[in-house]
């Protein structure tokens, strides 16, 4: 452990501020908390038997029957409502473009372009065919390492991949952009199998594709009925023997990526269960 005078300065500074935290714990809670229902001040009279709930605008004009739950929301958030989803994926095709970049190889960094075709069997599950092509960038660390260690760096040069993935989206939510614009999002987990092409897949060794598995996670935002923006991290694992004089090893290519997807059909209609 390398301790310096800076460490002691930081510790003393932060410890001196910690007592102020107690003040923050005692403050009043502003805003609207939807996590717990509020008790109504006066009980509402029950509607006459046989009548359906009807929404009205400010002038009192009928807006037609409303679904269970919506009436309660309009009445002032007195109960915790199950809100319907703002974006429907079930039964839609997704065509996506992504830009991945490696985050675990400081010597040979990889950037690429990828594509995805997915079908959503349900709101939380999709099957996707995914592919990517990569270019490799040799960083200055290669030269520094070669000089310092008087040796050569061995690497598996990743050229491309084709995968079949299952995508599970268990978490769903919404965000406010600058406190006003509401956008829905979900968080997904991804796993699948496929093939990876590296420098050993082509001549002179011509080994063909290496079997590969991938695992990933990310966030998808839905700013329009037909559009999704996403960002995530995907790790791909594949066996490769970069040089015949060294043992075969399990290669790990971890890519951060941003992407955009278009959904077909480009609109949806909410169907009550």
């Amino acid at each position, binding site marked *: 452990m390398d301790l310096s005078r800076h460490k002691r300065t930081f510790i003393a500074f932060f410890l001196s501020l910690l007592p102020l935290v107690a003040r923050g714990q005692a403050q009043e809670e502003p805003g609207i908390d*939807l*996590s717990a229902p509020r008790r109504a001040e006066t009980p509402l009279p029950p509607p006459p038997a046989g009548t359906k709930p009807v929404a009205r605008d400010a002038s009192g004009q009928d807006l037609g029957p409303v679904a269970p739950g919506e009436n309660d929301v309009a009445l002032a958030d007195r109960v915790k409502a199950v809100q319907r989803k703002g974006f429907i994926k079930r039964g839609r095709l997704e065509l996506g473009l992504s830009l991945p970049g490696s985050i675990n190889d400081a010597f040979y960094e990889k950037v690429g372009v990828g594509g995805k075709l997915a079908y959503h069997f349900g709101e939380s599950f999709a099957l996707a065919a995914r592919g990517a092509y990569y270019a490799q960038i040799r960083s200055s660390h290669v030269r520094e*390492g070669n000089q310092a260690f008087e040796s050569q760096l061995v690497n598996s040069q990743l050229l491309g991949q084709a995968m079949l993935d299952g995508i599970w989206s268990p978490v769903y939510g919404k965000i406010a952009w*600058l406190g006003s614009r509401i956008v829905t999002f979900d968080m997904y987990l991804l796993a699948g199998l496929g093939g990876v092409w590296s420098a050993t897949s082509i001549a002179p060794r011509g080994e063909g594709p290496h079997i590969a598995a991938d695992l990933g996670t990310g966030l998808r935002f839905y700013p329009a009925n037909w559009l999704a923006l996403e960002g995530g991290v995907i790790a791909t694992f594949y066996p490769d023997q970069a040089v015949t004089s060294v043992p075969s090893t399990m290669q790990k290519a971890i890519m*951060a990526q941003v992407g955009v997807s278009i959904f077909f059909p480009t609109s949806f209609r909410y169907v009550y269960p």
Partner: protein
Amino acid sequence: MTSRSAALLLGTTALLVLAPALARASEADAFENKVKPVSGQVYEKAGKLELTPAFQLSMNDAFFSKYLAGGKLAYHLSEYFSVGVNGVFALANSATGSTNVCQGNAGCQPAQQVQLYQVPGYLKWVAGAEVAFSPIYGKLNLFAEKAVHFDLSVFAGADLVGYRDVLAASAVLGGSQPSDASSIGGHLGLGARIFLARSVALSLEVKDLFYKVQGLSTANLQAQLFAQAGLAFFVPLGSRSSP
């Protein structure tokens, strides 16, 4: 610019340029354009000090894995903008597996100390100031039971970076020891706060730190990716009236 820097910049740009348009209700919505959504931002930051003790782990290391501890003190000018100072010191710098030297029949051996003196990446401390923009506040339902509130932010800042300088091979052969050095740098990153209570949040950040290494004759601009986790404590200053 490295690929991860480009990815980070691209992600930030996408976040800003593709700022979502107003979400539209579907055709079946009886309240379409009649009932505005009430987005209750339960956890407010404006006018508060934020103190964040944190732990940092380096990513994408070439020669040294770095473990750092420190913190950040920020003041929230509004719900969306904050300014702050930050500082971390290194708990450890350990040589990565990439520094192992493998020879024909002798197997692989860790690099010698004199070899490690010749490569960059041995960080000692970082101190700086930054500006953050948090345009996104969100909530999600966890297992249909617990509402989790969070925000997302982008930030950038200037830093003073302390590191162990790099020695040339000739200096190492002459028995020299590397000295400490410091240089001006900067960082760019993405952050998220997951609110655990009124004044406490889990703070997660990913940032790319840039700095120059004096001992390198060429390509002396270094980029180092860090992941940071910490607990943010919010301390109100003065009184603010709620709407």
